[in-house]
Every structure is written in structure tokens, then in C-alpha cells.
């Protein structure tokens, strides 16, 4: 029989985790990839918040003398053809990405949760009609749908958020609805009725909190795609308008003309997009593992 080291097993299970520092240490040990994702996301958020402190240059100031300056020297990541500092634009671009990513995901989740909850809990004709609408929306890919929305709404930060949020709604509504359908048959819902709760209150107090775990998993996954779609929209000229620095538009401005002569104009925004999307996906996977009830001990 194998010798079992109880201390090692307990440590693996996280039995001696104390305090928030211990919790973080345990998370890093248990989900190293998730930790990488968390670090990437933390860097992303910090960059967006402290953009003013991080960047020495103003992202809007043009300077013809340093047009297409290569990386190194005064401009760490080089400068674009108008002589704007690439590093500054990436740093400030994080704000746009974060605003659109979080804004669109939050808006999409709020609408999706409302629709899914009403649809699943109250059912009836509302459910029927709304779910067919969701079917129609889901038949189009996220990007195509967002493209149509953005094109019809016109370019602005708010419109970009709306254009990305609306196509996210069906996914959220679906998940919440299916969870609600099983939750509303649970005995604790009946018990809540038996203490005199109204149906609306039951839906909000008892059903909604039980759908939060899958919602968090979905939201982190959607965050990555929202950021990606924002870049794609900007790349196609339908995102946040000039002069706001958006990673996607930085790519599109430079891709055709300068990809051979000044590749840093394409590489660095591309790396920024990839890193953030990669980070949210890694973090989302770890969250999913943690919140998966089958793995919770």
C-alpha cells in the first residue's frame, strides 16, 4: 500500500488556507494558468486606470519629426506615421477596450438575465415569443450581428457598447432561462411560496442568486469576445471614432501600408489584444473550474 502523506494531501485540498494572502497563494498553486490570466487582467485594468501615470506621452499629440520612429529610444514602442507614441496609444487604448468590454458584457448580462428570468420563471406567451427572437439573433454570429448593429447605430463609444451588448443577450438569456426552468421546480421555491412570498420576489430572491455561478462563468468568457469584437469593429472602421485610441483601429490604420516598413505599428496593438483576450479566457476557465459544483468539495 502506498504511503499517503496527509499533510501534502491536505495542502493540495487547501485545508490550511488562511486569510486572503493564503487564498491567493492557494489559487496560484492550484490554477497556475488561471493565475497567469488573473495577472494579465490585473495589468490590463491597472493600465486603463493609471494610463495618465504610466505613459509619458500624450496619445493625441502628433509630431511629424518622429513619424514612423522605430521602437527604442524616446518612443519605447515607436511612433506611428503621425508621430503619435505607440506605447501611449496602447496604454490609453486599454481604457476603450476595458470600457467597451466591461460595459458591453455588463449591459448584455443585465438584459439577458432579465429576459431569461422572466422567460423561464413565468413562461407562457412571453417565453415563446422572446425565445424565438433569441433564436433569430443567435442564428447570426456575434461579429456579424455587432457589425450590423454598429453600422446602423453609427460610431461612438456608447453605440459600440450597445452594438456588442445586444448580440450577447441571447447567450445569457438562454443559460439563465434553462437554469430557471429547473430551479423553479425546486422544493425551496415551493417552501418560499408557503411562507407567503410573491412570485416576483421568489424569482429575484431565490431563483436569481442560484443562477449566478453559471452567469459569472459566462460573463468572463464573454468579456474576452466583447474585447475582440470591439477590436474587429474598430478595424473595420465601425468602432470608437478618432481620435480615441482603439487597438483595433491602430491595427487597421497601419496594416495595409506599414506592415512591411514599420511592423511595430501592427505587432504591438496585436500583442495587446491577444494578451488581454488570452488573459480573460484563462481566468474564465479557472473561474469555471472553481464554480463548477461537481468539483466543489
Amino acid at each position: 500500500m502506498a504511503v499517503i502523506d496527509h499533510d501534502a494531501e491536505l495542502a493540495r485540498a487547501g485545508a490550511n488556507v488562511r486569510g486572503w494572502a493564503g487564498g491567493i497563494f492557494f489559487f496560484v498553486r492550484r490554477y497556475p494558468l488561471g493565475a497567469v490570466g488573473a495577472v494579465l487582467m490585473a495589468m490590463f485594468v491597472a493600465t486603463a486606470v493609471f494610463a495618465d501615470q504610466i505613459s509619458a506621452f500624450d496619445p493625441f499629440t502628433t509630431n511629424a519629426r518622429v513619424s514612423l520612429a522605430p521602437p527604442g529610444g524616446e518612443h519605447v514602442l515607436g511612433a506611428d506615421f503621425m508621430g503619435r507614441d505607440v506605447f501611449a496609444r496602447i496604454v490609453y487604448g486599454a481604457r476603450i477596450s476595458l470600457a467597451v468590454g466591461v460595459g458591453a458584457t455588463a449591459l448584455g448580462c443585465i438584459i439577458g438575465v432579465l429576459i431569461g428570468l422572466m422567460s423561464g420563471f413565468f413562461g407562457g406567451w412571453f417565453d415563446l415569443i422572446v425565445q424565438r427572437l433569441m433564436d433569430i439573433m443567435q442564428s447570426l454570429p456575434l461579429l456579424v450581428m455587432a457589425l450590423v448593429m454598429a453600422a446602423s447605430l453609427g460610431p461612438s463609444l456608447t453605440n459600440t457598447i450597445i452594438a456588442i451588448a445586444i448580440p450577447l443577450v441571447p447567450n445569457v438569456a438562454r443559460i439563465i432561462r434553462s437554469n430557471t426552468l429547473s430551479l423553479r421546480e425546486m422544493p425551496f421555491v415551493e417552501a418560499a411560496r408557503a411562507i407567503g412570498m410573491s412570485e416576483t420576489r421568489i424569482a429575484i430572491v431565490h431563483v436569481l442568486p442560484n443562477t449566478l455561478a453559471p452567469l459569472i462563468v459566462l460573463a468572463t468568457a464573454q468579456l474576452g469576445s466583447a474585447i475582440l469584437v470591439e477590436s474587429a469593429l474598430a478595424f473595420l472602421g465601425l468602432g470608437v471614432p478618432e481620435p480615441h485610441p482603439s487597438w483595433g483601429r491602430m491595427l487597421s490604420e497601419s496594416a495595409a501600408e506599414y506592415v512591411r516598413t514599420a511592423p511595430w505599428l501592427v505587432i504591438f496593438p496585436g500583442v495587446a489584444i491577444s494578451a488581454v483576450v488570452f488573459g480573460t479566457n484563462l481566468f474564465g476557465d479557472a473561474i469555471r473550474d472553481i464554480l463548477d459544483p461537481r468539483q466543489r468539495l
Partner: protein
Amino acid sequence: MSLQAASPSNSAEQATATSRVLEVEDLQTYFYTRSGLVKAVDGVSFSLARGATLAIVGESGCGKSVTALSLMRLVADPPGRIIGGRVRLEGVDLLRLDEAAMRDIRGNQISMVFQEPMTSLNPVMTIGRQISEALILHQRMSNKAALNRAIEMLQLVGIPEPKQRAKEYPHQLSGGMRQRAMIAMALACNPRVLIADEPTSALDVTIQAQILELIAKLQRELGTAVILITHDLGVVAETAERVIVMYAGRKVEEAAVGELFARPLHPYTRGLMNSIPRLALMRREAGQQRLQEIPGIVPALSNLPQACTFAPRCAFADDMCRGQFPPYQEKRPDHWAACWHSERIAEKVNG
């Protein structure tokens, strides 16, 4: 005591002149299903004295749980519908109230403990919060006051370290603890009537006794009347004062508990009693005597004959039984039964 003081004084208080807290008359709950009309509760009447315990017994599917849900007006519609009768709680006919008024009654004046303590509590809400809900709803308490009361209730139902437990989630509690928490939740507003629908069926035997004892103790302290729904005659004998035996949606026998056990007048009641395992029976030398069962199964309620519904399973059945449903009559003082042959059955028990 403080618990009683906390109950709201409402107009129903004036109805205390009557000794009956709950009167059910000719309750009929039908289910409209694909396989036809199911008369799950068909003309059940009973009354419940203040602070008393009434047991409703019968096999699975005899309509006892639907009776309970009908009293709470919680029968799922569709397919179920309460189509007739009166349920008077403190003189107020619950079946005539609108839904909002009924919500004020539920959990406040009449509440229910369910069979499954494992799933009857919301897994993502703390115990304290769940007990608070009823208080916040009915007594307009602040969250903090309600939580303090919830902790008092947890203490009352015998949960150790109630302050600590109130912050815990259902999965951190054992089955017995959870049922105690359910009872605390049901009794938080000090209702007049507590319906306990097989409160101990999902618990192991040692915990069963504790829970029943707890219900009896709280009943004495709070003056709550209890309707105990069960299929366990042992439980009935220990706790109830009065017993109703239900079969196929109808009441077939009713008596005080002592009288019923001493002199069952309906063959179904007799069958139920004979199917209780007895130690003496098992110890018998030969050890071969088989535990008696009631042959057959409960008939499908969707297609009941005009005849006595128990006739197909009854050893006493004759042509009269197969022809007409027996009237529900007072066969002995305060002992009612619906059987053509109750005299013969009584003799057989005594003989």
C-alpha cells in the same frame, strides 16, 4: 412570552370565541390530466381545535399531501384546481381570498414544513436569511431585527450555537438540523396552524423522534395547532390526538387516536395497523409468520367506480360494497367511518 407577543394582532383575534381554529368543509381538489379527471381530494371535511394535533394518514397517492397543499392554496394550477368546499381559518374562508390576501396568510397564520429538508432550503442563502424572509414579509421587520428573531427561532428549535448557524448555508447542516431550520422558518411568525407534510420521512429514526418531540414541544409553547401528514402509524400514536384515515381521496375513518387504535372500524385502517412490524411477531419461535400487507394497490384516481373504492382490496367485500359507496357515518360516539361492515370488523378486532 415574547414569541406570542410578536404575533400581529388582527381582526381574526376576535374569532377566538370558537374553539376551532380551522374548519374544512367538503374540500374538493381535482386534477385535469390527460388520463382524465383525477379526484385527488373528494369531499374531505374536518376541523382542527386550537392547539390540537390532527393526523392525516394513508398510503402514497391517497390525497393527503394534496389536501395539505389545498389548505395552503398551493396546488399547481394547471393541472390542479380546488373546485369546491370551504377552508375556514379563524372564520375566514381561505378559498375566497384573492392571491395577495392569501400570501399574507401563508407563512403568517398557516404554514407548512415539507418532507425534504435537503432541498427545501435555498442552497445559496444563509439559514438566518431564509428564516428572516417570512418576518420581513409579514411583520415588516428590518433585516437586522428579523435576523435577531431568526437566531432566537434557531435557538428555540434546539440548534446549538444559533448565532453561528444563522450565518451558515444549508449544505453545512445535517438533515435533522435542516429540518429544525425548516420548522423555525415555518413557525417564525407564530402561525395558528402548522401543516407538517411527512416531516420525518427523509430522516433517520433517531432524528425522527427528536423532530416529532420538537414539534410537540413547540406546539405546547406556542399554542400552534398541527396537522401531521404521515403514513407512519407509529408516529400518529405518539403525537396526534385525532386521526383521519384517507383512502383514494376520501376520508374513510376518523376518531380520537386511542379509539382508532383500539377499535378500527374500516378494513383499510385495520390493514394499515396489521402492516406495522411488531417485535413480538418477529421474536416468535417459528419466526415464519409473515407481516401482513394490504393486497393490491391504490386504485387509479382517474377512474373511480361508484362502489366502495377499497372493495377490490378488502377481505370483507361483498356485492353491497361493489355496488354502492358506503355512507360516512358516526358508528360509535365520535368515531366515524365509511364502511358497510364496520360492525363485523370491530368484532373481529375484539375477538
